[in-house]
């Protein structure tokens, strides 16, 4: 039986929660659309970033090798933006820009700042894409640890697994609890997925040869962390969500993402 509770959260509570929030490896906003015929990835990129994309691709006949209808990407400061359009969905993905220095720590972003930035642009995107079948906000949070064992211990700690041993591999915990939003007839899935993430940083030292890429020497460094993916999305019923309603929903999806993310505990879904 699905238990549904009402979402009640104040702005001051959000500010308090943000202090404990882990940083993000990526943040993703998704509009699931009934028709993407008139949506252009480069135009959405412009709406999201205020700038033109560095790379723009269009594909008239998507297939298994490239299912995308459109792609627009670029880097602004320390952030990389990617807009992906495929049948049925528009994805806006923000991730840290890559670094060439192996000594750099795992690149992460201020989760609350990214969510606020994209939310401020989401209204324009909603107006451009029209009614949606479903809306989604996904934040991939990471807490860096010195090695895999430490990341696993941190996983066991935050998930409150009491196994009596800690030398486990490939741990994962996923839980979902639905909740009703305020002011709109919409329920959301609140999927929390805890795990251990390993990120590898490659540097290819290229020995210059005209017109060739041969002679590259790869150097790599691994970084580890405890991961928490927050995948909060509206429960699809087939009802179309108009653009005006999308703003109300995104605000509540983000507020709930911040509240649950700051708790770093599956018990946060109790509210």
């Amino acid at each position: 039986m699905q238990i549904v509770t009402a979402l009640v959260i104040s702005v001051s509570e959000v500010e308090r929660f943000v202090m404990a929030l882990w940083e993000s490896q990526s943040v993703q906003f998704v509009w699931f659309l009934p028709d993407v015929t008139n949506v252009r990835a480069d135009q959405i990129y412009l709406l999201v970033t205020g700038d033109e994309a560095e790379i723009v691709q269009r594909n008239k006949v998507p297939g298994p090798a490239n299912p995308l209808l459109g792609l627009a990407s670029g880097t602004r400061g320390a952030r990389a933006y990617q807009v992906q359009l495929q049948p049925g969905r528009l994805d806006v993905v923000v991730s840290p820009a890559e670094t060439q220095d192996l000594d750099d720590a795992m690149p992460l972003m201020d989760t609350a700042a990214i969510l606020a930035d994209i939310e401020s642009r989401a209204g324009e995107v909603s107006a451009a894409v029209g009614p949606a079948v479903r809306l989604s906000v996904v934040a991939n949070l990471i807490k860096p640890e010195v090695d895999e064992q430490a990341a696993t211990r941190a996983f066991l700690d935050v998930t409150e697994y009491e196994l009596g041993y800690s030398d486990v591999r490939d741990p994962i915990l996923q839980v979902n609890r639905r909740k009703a939003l305020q002011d709109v007839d919409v329920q959301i899935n609140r999927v929390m997925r805890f795990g251990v993430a390993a990120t590898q940083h490659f540097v290819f030292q290229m020995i210059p040869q005209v017109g060739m890429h041969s002679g590259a020497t790869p150097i790599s460094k691994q970084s580890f962390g405890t991961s928490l993916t927050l995948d909060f999305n509206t429960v699809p019923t087939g009802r179309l969500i108009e653009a005006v309603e999308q703003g109300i929903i995104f605000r509540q999806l983000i507020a709930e993402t911040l509240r649950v993310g700051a708790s770093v505990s599956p018990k946060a879904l109790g509210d």
Partner: protein
Amino acid sequence: MVMKIKPRKYVAVQESGGGRSVFFPFGIYGSQTNAEPAQVSSWVSMHSEDPTNLGANSDRSIRFAVLQQAIKHMALLPDDHTLHVDAEAAERASSILAVISQNFSVKPPKVMPQDGEGVVFTWDYGDLKRYLTVEEDDLDVMDLNKRLGVKCVHDVAHDMTVFEKLVELIGAPPASSTTMDADA
């Protein structure tokens, strides 16, 4: 003269988009000095899941992508070809298939043309065979009990509630995650 390869941008390893692809956006220009080795870096996430939550490399996603490709190709065939489908009907069929695949736990259907004017999706559930016929201005669902030979036809109006009615008819569980792979 020594040619120097300088990266304008880092190598971008993209996990999304159906296939793993690597871009090498180099600029090549001349230099009179010995070239320094160019460094190109890339972060590769080894997380246990697709960090972009697209799930584009899953078997399910690939099979739906093949169907989308097939519909597009059917619309591009000459009018007199046996597999030809009108462009408007193909566009609508593509949209409806995308909504179903991205938001509900349904397995990929089979696809075939309907007299050049529509697309038919079919699913087999034991003795039951379900037909979803999509034309430019019409949509219907027919369930056929193959053992008894009994048919049940449902017309779905062409308006804003089309997806609600369709969801009710096909009875598919709604998605919980942004990528369907966790649900399917």
